[in-house]
């Protein structure tokens, strides 16, 4: 195997339980986003644009769809002779076999994979964030500082800082302290879950961490604090672009809607930093004589006869005449029946909404059996993938419809 200066490892094993029904059958990184993408398209495309051509994707929870999606890596230009993308599930060896116990353990179990490429550095990424970032710049800063680890940080509002892992740094951005979700934050620089490590240093820490039976085998909880304790050089790397953790239904909905802003915080149509994705072989979309489309994103294979306003439609969505879709995200292949009204909702892949159905309504008499404010806050309604809802049903807002409502 030809050696590589830098190998990327994407942690894509998380369940994303706060996304409720959306991640019942797929891992969070495979959740559709922005009409054409999956969440993992962002870190994968970032790798390609940053010149990293060797990427390990660590999967564990419901990996089938994610594995199928990544395939040979061709959509991201990662089908390479030397390097390319590798899906790395947990495995059984001669001594033992176990699940990935934590983020650090996942990398520990794949030390052999990384070592094949004999890299100087590894980039550790999370598969659940929406952002465009040049890892090459961060790697350059890491080399220049002669650091053992560099952690990407983003300024978050002070009142939200206690929800993040916070880096306290000196004036040169050298990290002096790391606090996971501090009650009284001393800084508002939050870790983005993007790390560059000097591989031989990290490897040593991973091996030590594995021996520690009390460890949670987690980067944030164990590896980073241990390195700080031992006086290793950890640097913060400021990122000032758009970054969003789409871990909840609300943040996923928000991030989709932000694409429709007049001046979106993240430009997905940047030709020099295209977000690559697996394209379905579908014809262009069709907007009929009875359709009204305003302020929305619509993609291939859609057939629109109804009204779509301030919404995002993924490939192959059908909107029948008289239907209204407002402030919503419709995932691939969903079918919206005649005169249905969808308001502030996420409608899952392949869902079928009957005629005159109301989703996310405040009207009296609407079905409230599915109301689930734990998952669906802020009046958002979620319809699970493949759910079928019969004609003339009204579903109250804040619902998570997890099973079909049949005639």
């Amino acid at each position: 195997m030809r050696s590589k200066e830098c190998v990327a490892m994407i942690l894509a094993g998380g369940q994303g339980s706060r996304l409720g029904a959306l991640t019942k059958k797929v891992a969070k990184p495979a959740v559709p986003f922005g009409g054409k993408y999956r969440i993992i398209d962002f870190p994968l495309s970032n790798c390609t644009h940053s010149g990293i051509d060797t990427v390990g994707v660590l999967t564990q929870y419901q990996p089938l769809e994610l594995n199928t999606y990544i395939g040979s890596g061709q959509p991201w230009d990662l089908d390479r002779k030397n390097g390319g993308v590798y899906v790395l599930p947990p495995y059984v060896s001669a001594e033992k076999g176990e699940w990935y116990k934590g983020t650090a353990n996942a990398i520990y179990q794949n030390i052999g994979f990384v070592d094949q490429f004999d890299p100087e550095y590894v980039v550790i990424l999370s598969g659940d964030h929406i952002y465009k970032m040049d890892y090459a710049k961060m790697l350059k800063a890491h080399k220049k500082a002669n650091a053992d680890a560099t952690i990407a940080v983003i300024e978050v509002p002070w009142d939200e800082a206690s929800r993040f892992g916070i880096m306290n740094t000196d004036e040169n951005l050298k990290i002096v302290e790391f606090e996971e979700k501090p009650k009284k934050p001393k800084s508002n620089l939050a870790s983005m879950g993007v790390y560059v490590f000097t591989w031989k240093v990290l490897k040593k820490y991973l091996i030590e961490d594995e021996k520690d039976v009390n460890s949670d085998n987690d980067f944030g909880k164990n590896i980073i604090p241990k390195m700080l304790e031992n006086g290793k050089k950890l640097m913060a790397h400021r990122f000032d672009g758009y970054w969003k953790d789409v871990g909840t239904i609300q943040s996923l909905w928000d991030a989709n809607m932000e694409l429709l802003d007049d001046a979106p915080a993240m430009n997905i149509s940047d030709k020099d930093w295209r977000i690559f994705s697996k394209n379905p072989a579908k014809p262009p979309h069709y907007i009929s004589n009875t359709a009204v489309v305003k302020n929305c994103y619509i993609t291939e294979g859609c057939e629109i006869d109804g009204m779509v306003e301030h919404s995002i439609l993924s490939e192959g969505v059908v909107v029948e005449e008289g239907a209204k879709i407002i402030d919503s995200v419709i995932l691939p292949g969903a079918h919206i029946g005649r005169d249905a009204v969808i308001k502030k909702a996420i409608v899952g892949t392949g869902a079928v909404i009957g005629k005159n159905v109301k989703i996310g309504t405040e009207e009296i008499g609407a079905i409230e059996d599915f109301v689930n404010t734990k998952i669906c806050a802020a009046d958002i309604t979620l319809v699970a993938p493949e759910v079928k809802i019969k004609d003339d049903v009204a579903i109250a807002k804040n619902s998570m419809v997890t099973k079909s409502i049949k005639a």
Partner: protein
Amino acid sequence: MHNSTLGLIFSENPEANLGDLTNLRALAAVPVGGRYRIIDFILSNMVNTGIANVGITTTSKMQSLTDHLGTGKDWDLARKQNGLFILPHNEAYDSNKQYGVDYIYNAFSYLRRSRQDYVLVSDCNTICNLTYEDVEKLHMEKDADITMVYTKVGQIEDRRLKRHIFLDVDKDGRVTDMELYPTVQKLNNSYMHMFYIKKSLLLELVGDCIAHGKHKLNADLLMSNIDKLKIYAYEFEGYSKTIDNIKTYFGFNLDLLKKEVRDELFGTKDDDRIYTKVKDMVPTKYGKNSCVTNSIIADGCVIEGQVKNCIIFRGVKIGEGAVVENSIIMQNSQIMENCLVENAIFDKEVILREGKKLVGQETYPVIIGKRVVV
């Protein structure tokens, strides 16, 4: 079928004339239907039938076609064995004077080297969604030498007759006569310019034509062998359209505005899709004041104005206050604020500056060439 048949597609057709659209590109590479090139349809049909070895004959205008096809990976034809073969033209001939027989003759070494025993020979410009299993089945059942594909047509207007080849077919499905570009219509079986043949026989017939100074595929290779060979005909009953001039080009694009045509042509299942080069464009953005009706719109566009009865290709921008009707706007063209466009075909990367008006006639659309700035 996939083990035994290879596809041979002609990227040009001397009988087609698309004017400015083919000045710089092969007929096969002319953009259609919002995100496709003409060749995507026939090529996808072959792939969907399981044909894994396809040769495409080219002329000197091959650049745009080879850019589009690349290694063939978007059609799943980037293979170690078989795959996509671009067959270069023979510099010794003037491309304009080459006919079908010459193109096949140029491809002799490719044909001989291929392992398949049968060849599906096809023009590129008949658009349909046809899988060839039934053609092959008929061919084998009848123990035919050649099987030609045709479609039933109604009464053709006199001036369009010169574009048709009619087959006279007996009850058994055998071709008993062929009429090439007649002046009076006696038959209604219009040949779709696709035939199925054993490779060894094709090589023999082409060799024979060349040796006798004959070059025309339809007249010399097919018609003159009607009495000597068992030529059968397969009727295709679905939608098909031959693009051979601006009018049929325009007509085909507008046919796509009909749901039944789209559903048939683009397929509703996963095994009859039409593949094309993937561009990784973002979805299309509609502005707050956009007003779009009865149109096909590809990805990567930004639509702020009014669009009616149009085919809009990838990456087109239509500014606020602009009105675009009955038009075909190709990739990356820009129509700025308050323009008016009617009955027009914009080639790629055309820019129409603020407030300009361009109005063609329904029967005679205006064509704006590639990269023109108005």
